């Protein structure tokens, strides 16, 4: 397994946001974590990426225990988070944001080709190279956040709510790009509120409810699961 998360507990002060959550992501897989608002999706991403420390439990990446590593150390190992839209650097231009994604890299030629790759994936960004990120629309910022994470050539790409605040058409677009990224060979763990898109995309999926995993299975199976359909897809 590329990523193994075992029984992690995450606290914000006295409030426990995750109560012993476990999940796994294998090499080459696309795994989704779906759940409603407040279920602990973003907390899970924070814990895995190292932005917040866990109070107990263990996180292993690539066979190595990374529980006590800082976020920047985990990132250097290839565990890279694309935070939800607001997580871009607002005062930097598109190109500068992308450069930050390659901050830890020194292989000049490869970085330039990755610029090309990101601009191919997101033509919208290549039209706005010089634009300041803070002045872009929510969808564009989201694309930038994902593109920035790709610039580091992640082993595992953590996507935090890529559809957050986007118009339905843009959601479709973002997800088809994510599919393309996965097909190019990047392992992805995506956390989503938009269950339909996330389940269609995923090889496997977890359902998160108030800080616990309540269900797991193949994406396609969960899509047809009655209780999931009722709770997350709005159909009986």
């Amino acid at each position, binding site marked *: 397994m590329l990523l193994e998360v075992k029984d992690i507990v995450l606290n914000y002060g006295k409030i426990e946001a995750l109560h012993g959550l476990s999940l796994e992501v294998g090499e080459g897989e696309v795994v989704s974590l779906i759940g409603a608002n407040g279920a602990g999706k973003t907390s899970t991403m924070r814990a895995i*990426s*190292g*932005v917040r420390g866990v109070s107990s439990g263990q996180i292993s990446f690539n066979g190595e225990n990374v529980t006590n590593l*800082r*976020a*920047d*150390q985990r*990132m*250097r190992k290839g565990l*890279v*988070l694309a*935070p939800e839209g*607001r*997580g*871009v*650097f*607002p*005062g*930097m*231009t*598109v*190109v*500068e944001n992308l*450069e*930050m*994604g*390659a*901050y*830890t890299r*020194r*292989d*000049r*030629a490869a*970085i*330039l080709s990755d*610029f090309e790759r990101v601009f191919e994936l997101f033509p919208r960004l290549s039209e706005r*190279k*010089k634009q*300041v990120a*803070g*002045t872009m629309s929510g969808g564009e910022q989201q694309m930038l956040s994902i593109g*920035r*994470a790709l610039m*580091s050539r992640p082993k595992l790409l953590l996507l935090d709510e890529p559809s957050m605040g986007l118009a339905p058409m843009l959601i479709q677009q973002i997800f088809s790009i994510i599919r393309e990224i996965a097909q190019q060979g990047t392992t992805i763990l995506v956390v989503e509120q938009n269950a339909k898109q996330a389940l269609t995309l995923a090889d496997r999926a977890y359902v998160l409810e108030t800080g616990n995993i309540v269900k797991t299975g193949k994406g396609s199976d969960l899509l047809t699961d009655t209780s999931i359909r009722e709770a997350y897809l709005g159909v009986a």
Partner: protein
Amino acid sequence: MTDTTPQKSVLKRVAAVPSLLGGAPQWVKVPLILLVLSFCVYLPFLNILPFAYIRTDLRPNGSDWSTVLFTIALYMIVAVGLNVVIGWAGLLDLGYVGFYAVGAYSIALFGSPASPVTKAIAAQFGLPEGWSMAFAACIPLAICIALIAGVILGAPTLRLRGDYLAIVTMGFGEIIRIVMRNSTWTGGPAGIIAVPEPPAADEDFFNTIDVHRWYWLALAVLVILIWLMRRLEHSRVGRAWLAIREDEDAAAVMGVNAFKYKLWAFAIGASLGAIAGLLFASKQAYVEPNGFQLNLSFLFVAMVVIGGSGNIWGALFGAFLITYLPERFREFESWRPLAFGVALVAIMVLRPQGLFPNRRRARELEDRKHEAEEAAADA
């Protein structure tokens, strides 16, 4: 500038951010810079009307013009240093006078034959009476001590955010002053005399009468430091600071060790403050703890904030305003605190990003305002 990072070449190609004179070609830039510099060098002798009206010694009890120029250059060095900490790394340091004092006391303690420290060293190692360290040796020593002081202050406190950091640093500034006042090895409240002046071929070159020479020295140091800091701003370190300032979590997720770079900012800022302190002590030939009061820290912060934090030229202008105006308009001396207060409030209300803001800082401020408005709308 050599291009070692791929980021930079890409940056130049597609997103060059214009700056002061940024668009001007080299043949305009270089003569222009030389012109401004030679004017600065000439300033102490400025005697042509109407330009001479900027002098501060036109009235019988006005301040000596060269001394004012020296102080301006000195505080500009301070502002450049503090700009690294506040403007670039985004850390509010209210105890910057502490580093200024560390620099001043470093040269006083080790460079003056009258200081208890040199006396103790001389006695310990059987050195002749009146021994003291060479001026040139005191410079790296002062920088090292300031770096260490910066790390000692920074390491435990940089995990604090915002206001808490400001309070702790303010305490630091006071601690330095109070330790200097209450210890015997620092000369106590009386301070230390016979702080050495820089060596020169003509032994009397740096004296108390030809103050313009001190001004030239400070100016030269200032120019070198501005050049160095500009290099730093556009380096990987500068980019890391920018990222941390804009979004610390996002910076961490991109592999930036925020703590390490904040500590660097603190240490670099500290050493610049110490260089200014060293010049100050050397020019005065005398240090005493009362020269490093807390209000000096506030003045330093005001320079950076009024000028426009994050922009070296803004910080320089802020230092100029706050040092020069009170000297030029001495006749309104009793109005000074009022004018200062009104000016500060006016700036904060009308132009919170400062007079000459860094473009990015202005945008960050704008962005934060939007976020606050959105949050307010949600609530």
